[in-house]
């Protein structure tokens, strides 16, 4: 595909989007393998163990979302700043360095699956911290690439034009890069280690990522629904205040059971319980804007995915999070399939959906079109089916994991007292196994959805270009 008509930032964004979608596919493949290993524990045992497939599944998710975010920022950067990117070549170099590092890290995960827990392992194989297992050399590389990204964003806005969205975005990137440093040092005290590790996981996910997504959503609403800039900027400020107000100290719900002082039970429980209030309050804003705009957009797939984002964020983060956030019940649910259920819906609903929406916003521009309305040659069946299958698949997995998690917290934790006997009783209970079987079925539905999504992204609107060309020739 020729991309000469795109600006430099957008051309770079297409590269990031391409890797993002490739990693999304990898995430689902390794998710399917992990799910199968729950049902058939001997599957690939000794070749590709569960701990490896799960590591790649989760790390691929973190990295593809980051690629999606970076790509989205590069996509809007020149348009928003009204100037060319300051360090485009540096940005391209950082892209290839980051992508090479990701490829090497994944290969090492797959090829070196066990070894001693020493400094060599930590620096070159696996750091051992769940979700951010990348070895130290890759950590340093990631930070350098993030600094290049930050430089490009900050310097470009400084050279061009600042706006409310760009200001929030730039400050958020400082936090995004800075907080990652908290997961880059080792302490032998597991409580202290976990204390800082959660800074990366929680504060990224429930603070800096949320704000970054808020910026993308604000920009996306301007593009898709032509919402007034002043309105989205005002709401971005309000959202940031609300998210930070409850989200930062909501960190405490991860400190319940890691050996931190008892006051974290109160702080974590209190602020976590307040975290859904901004989400609920935002319903008012959504209804108001929907009434004012009548939801008429110029890009139907992007609008549909933005709506999926609003619902997914509300249910995944709000409902599924609140159900087990208080320490009085979290004592039994923490780390069971309950967490996996919440994680699947929240990550998909809050983040995957918005990245997909941003890619759909970009696609018509890549093909030299104005939008993706209802006049697609094939009726847009591929994007509609991929939207439906992906959402149905993830919601189905969420409910299946919820059933397994309920059983696990009941039998393993409450009745079995978190003993080995309790653990194995729960893992072999019919409810747990049936939940895992249904998870697998819905995982397969999700994988059909991703195939359709990739197919659609590669082909959507192509026929229309030919149609439009024929019509132009006929008129001439």
């Amino acid at each position, binding site marked *: 595909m020729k991309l000469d008509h795109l600006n430099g930032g957008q051309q770079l964004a297409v590269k990031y989007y391409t890797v993002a979608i490739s990693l999304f596919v990898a995430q689902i493949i390794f998710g399917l393998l992990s799910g199968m290993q729950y049902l058939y524990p001997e599957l690939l045992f000794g070749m590709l163990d569960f701990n490896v497939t799960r590591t790649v599944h989760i790390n691929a998710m973190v990295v593809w979302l980051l690629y999606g975010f970076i790509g989205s920022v590069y996509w809007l950067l020149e348009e928003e700043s009204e100037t060319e990117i300051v360090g485009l070549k540096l940005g391209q170099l950082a892209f290839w360095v980051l992508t090479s590092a990701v490829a090497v890290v994944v290969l090492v995960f797959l090829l070196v699956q066990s070894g001693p827990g020493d400094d060599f392992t930590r620096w070159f194989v696996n750091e051992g911290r769940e979700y951010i297992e990348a070895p130290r050399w890759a950590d340093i590389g990631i930070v350098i690439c993030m600094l290049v990204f930050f430089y490009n964003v900050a310097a470009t806005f400084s050279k061009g034009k600042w706006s409310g969205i760009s200001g929030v975005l730039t400050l958020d990137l400082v936090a995004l890069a800075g907080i990652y440093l908290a997961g880059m040092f080792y302490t032998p005290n597991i409580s202290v280690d976990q204390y800082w590790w959660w800074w990366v996981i929680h504060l990224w996910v429930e603070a800096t990522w949320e704000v970054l997504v808020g910026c993308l959503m604000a920009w996306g609403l301007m593009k898709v629904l032509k919402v007034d800039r002043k309105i989205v900027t005002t709401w971005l400020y309000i959202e940031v205040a609300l998210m930070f107000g409850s989200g930062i100290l909501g960190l405490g719900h991860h400190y319940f059971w890691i050996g931190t002082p008892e006051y974290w039970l109160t702080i974590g429980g209190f602020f976590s319980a307040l975290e859904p209030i901004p*989400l609920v309050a935002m319903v008012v804003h959504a209804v108001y804007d929907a009434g004012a705009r009548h939801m008429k957009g110029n890009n139907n797939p992007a609008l549909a995915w933005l709506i999926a984002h609003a619902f997914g964020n509300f249910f995944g983060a709000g409902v599924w999070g*609140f159900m087990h956030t208080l320490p009085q019940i979290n004592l039994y649910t923490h780390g069971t399939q309950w967490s996996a259920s919440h994680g699947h819906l929240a990550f998909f609903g809050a983040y995957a959906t918005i990245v997909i929406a941003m890619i759909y916003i970009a696609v018509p521009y890549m093909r030299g079109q104005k939008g993706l309305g209802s006049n697609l040659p094939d009726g847009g069946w591929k994007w509609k089916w991929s939207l439906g299958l992906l959402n149905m698949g993830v919601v189905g997995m969420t409910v299946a994991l919820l059933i397994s998690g309920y059983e696990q917290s009941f039998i393993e934790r409450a009745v079995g007292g978190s003993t080995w006997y309790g653990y194995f009783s729960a893992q072999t209970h019919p409810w747990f196994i049936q939940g895992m079987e249904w998870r697998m079925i819905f995982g397969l539905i999700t994988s059909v959805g991703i195939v359709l999504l990739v197919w659609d992204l590669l082909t959507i609107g192509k026929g229309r270009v030919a149609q439009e060309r024929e019509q132009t020739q006929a008129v001439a």
Partner: protein
Amino acid sequence: MLEPVELKDFFIVFFSGAMVIMAGALYALLFAWSRLQSKPWMMVLAYASYGILFISVLVLGSAAHLHGFWWWLVITMLVGYLLAPHGIWNLCVATHASSVAPEADEKDLEPGSNQPINKTIKEESV
């Protein structure tokens, strides 16, 4: 200080916890819709939803043993969910009035006005 949930109350805690958020969202949705379309009967449904939220919070508080200091959490949730839609609505009116239709009659955009907001905006755009 912390009294864990009893085994028999597991489902009650999960269900009431989910109902707090669902009823809260329904209250916010109906509240905004009622104001937007100027349909007072919908406001009755909105407050009925808040009533469900109120009961759900109390049930959750009882099943999760939210006593002593934790009682403040119950109070904060009840007040927060009640007032948040009002606050956000006022912010919506203020931000839209100053940017979408600056020349619109302020009365048309005020909460409780008989003039539906979407009608006002449509007329302004025409």
